[in-house]
């Protein structure tokens, strides 16, 4: 047996914690921040007390523990980030990275931002600057471009209606810059333009790049069964949703002296304006908005009128097609069509697994069903527990009334 066993003396401990100067006795149980020394002589941790000391307010007012004891520092840094936002200026770049975004209607979409993110990666690896080649007909906002990571902007005159004239102009402009890399997105228009540029200049094209770094790019080939890793090419297209957009500090757009090019029309290829498809006859697999009927629908004339009023493409469950109420081409599901729609409205469809397979990529579902526990109701963003036969005519009426007003 070694020595005396120390025992706690609660009454004495309590007496030591008395806060004086009050009529009623009060005790300071938190211990004033100092660690408590156990009667054995070992210092004891007070986890509650520690937590209170480490607690700071983080992003969006969420509680946050700063373990390194830097709570005061952390609070200070949050304050500076939010108050001072300094634009990054690249005055004398080592080289240029050219970006040709699609910029439909002069707006940067998600893919254009990813393109700029990739360009920043290449530029920041060696002190380069990012040049955006935009269209003069729909000039982009400097502020949004700067936030997306661009340093310079050049506007081109030719629009997409004469692709050959556009390529002529771009080739001359790129000759004058000349950038180390040119980036486009592997979207419909970007892919076409990149290939036209590659064919005109005779250079190589790295198409559909999925991984991009300053030293290496990786792109699929061989029917998607193989991939090729190589150095970044002079002309590249990026696969969508692969490379993150720029989320650092805003860049400042500085002017760039470059002689403008007057585009000369060639008129061998003329591309007209986009014509949206007629939803009533459109291919179900590509339709953006589908309204479908299941066995809960008995009034099919009313259903067809609703679909027409909503300007949607009609769909149906298998039971409805089997009964001959809707044509087989409208069947949605495992043995029908898999949709690529933005929104799907289901009237009286239970949501069998074979049917839900057809909704693979659909983001928003609206269900009208009498059964609160139907699988389709669970899948829906807006679920209405009501009889479809009552809702459909009122829906038609409301839309017709709006149209008259």
């Amino acid at each position, binding site marked *: 047996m070694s020595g005396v066993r120390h025992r706690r003396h609660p009454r004495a401990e309590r007496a030591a914690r008395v806060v004086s100067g009050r009529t009623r006795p009060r005790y300071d149980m938190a211990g004033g921040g100092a660690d408590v020394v156990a009667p054995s002589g070992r210092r004891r941790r007070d986890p509650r007390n520690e937590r209170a000391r480490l607690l700071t307010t983080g992003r969006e007012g969420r509680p946050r523990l700063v373990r390194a004891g830097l709570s005061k520092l952390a609070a200070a840094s949050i304050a500076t980030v939010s108050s001072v936002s300094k634009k990054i200026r690249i005055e004398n770049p080592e080289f240029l990275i050219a970006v040709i975004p699609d910029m439909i209607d002069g707006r940067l979409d*998600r893919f254009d931002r*990813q393109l700029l993110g990739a360009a920043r990666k290449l530029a920041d690896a060696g002190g380069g600057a990012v040049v955006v080649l935009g269209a003069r007909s729909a000039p982009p906002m400097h502020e949004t471009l700067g936030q997306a990571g661009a340093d310079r902007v050049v506007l081109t005159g030719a629009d997409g209606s004469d692709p*050959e004239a556009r390529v002529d102009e771009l080739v001359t402009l790129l000759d004058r810059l000349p950038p180390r890399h040119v980036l486009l997105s592997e979207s*419909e228009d970007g892919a076409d333009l990149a*290939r*036209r540029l*590659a*064919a005109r200049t005779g250079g190589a*094209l790295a*198409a559909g790049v999925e*991984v991009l770094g300053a030293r290496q790019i990786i792109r*699929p*080939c*061989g*029917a*998607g*069964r*193989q*991939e*090729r*890793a*190589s*150095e970044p090419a002079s002309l590249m297209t990026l696969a969508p949703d*692969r490379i993150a957009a720029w989320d650092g500090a805003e860049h400042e757009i500085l002017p760039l002296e470059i002689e403008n090019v007057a585009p000369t029309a060639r008129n*061998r*290829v*003329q*591309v*007209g*304006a*986009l014509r*949206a*498809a007629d939803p009533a006859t*459109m*291919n179900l697999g*590509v339709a953006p*908005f589908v309204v479908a009927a299941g066995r809960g629908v008995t009034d099919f004339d009313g259903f067809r009128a609703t679909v027409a009023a909503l300007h949607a493409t009609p769909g149906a469950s298998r039971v409805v097609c089997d009964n001959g109420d809707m044509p087989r081409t409208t069947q949605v599901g495992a043995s029908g069509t898999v949709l690529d729609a933005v*929104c799907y*409205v289901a009237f009286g469809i239970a949501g069998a697994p074979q049917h839900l397979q057809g909704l693979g990529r659909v*983001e*928003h579902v*609206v269900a*009208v069903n009498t059964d609160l526990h139907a699988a389709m*109701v669970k899948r*829906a*963003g*807006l*679920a*209405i*527990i*009501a009889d479809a036969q009552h*809702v459909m*005519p*009122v*829906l038609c*009426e*409301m*839309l017709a009334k*709006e*149209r008259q007003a």
Partner: protein
Amino acid sequence: MKAIVLLSAGIDPVSGRPAPVGGEVRAIGLARALGAKTLIGLHAGASVPALADYGGYGLKEIICLSGGEHDPVAALAQFLIRASNVSAPDLVLAGTRGCGGADTGLLPYRLAEKLGWPIATGIAAPLEEQPAAGRLALAQARARGAVRPVHVTLPCVVTVSDMAECVPSFVFADKRAVQVRDERAERTPQGEMEEGLLRPYRRRPKLISAARTGGTGGQLLVDPTPEEAAAAIIAHLRSLGVLAAADEASSSKMT
């Protein structure tokens, strides 16, 4: 009209075995929809048995330029220039992307550049009203079933979209009847090799779009009146942007 369809010896992406490429099969369908009188398949490279499959989709004759695989663009261009002395093709059709090679879809563009012809890309169908002779009106396929009219002067190169619906039916007897002819291509120097390391594909996760994570968060209406239900549906569809706003709908009706 005389048309030539460019055939690449592709593979099936799933099994890896030789198979016809979707875009090229559709190119045969488009050539027929355009009313091509003579239709010839052309492949730069030695003949392979899989090429006969294209015969089943409606080609009577396929010419293989053996020795042309080193520089397909040069071999194909040489053949077409030589053919134009005898009977010039008006139209050269190709798929949008190959399947099994570099798959960049660059070959038709390079060929058009070399021949000095215009190129119309991603075509799904001919347009109904055709302009005067010497020009062609085509429908370019775009996302969500939209189309863009493209007018192009002949002779031209046309690439056919993988989404085009002009897939000809397969006839086994035609596959057996097709003539696959080998023709020696003039020796061309080896085209530029692709540098880099080739290895099996590794699947990598895509970025998750912010739009998809921020859902509307399940709204439920139990036994509403039909009016409430209809109003809720219309408001929801408007907020998603799939239903035109009321004033737009009425103005589009007037025009």
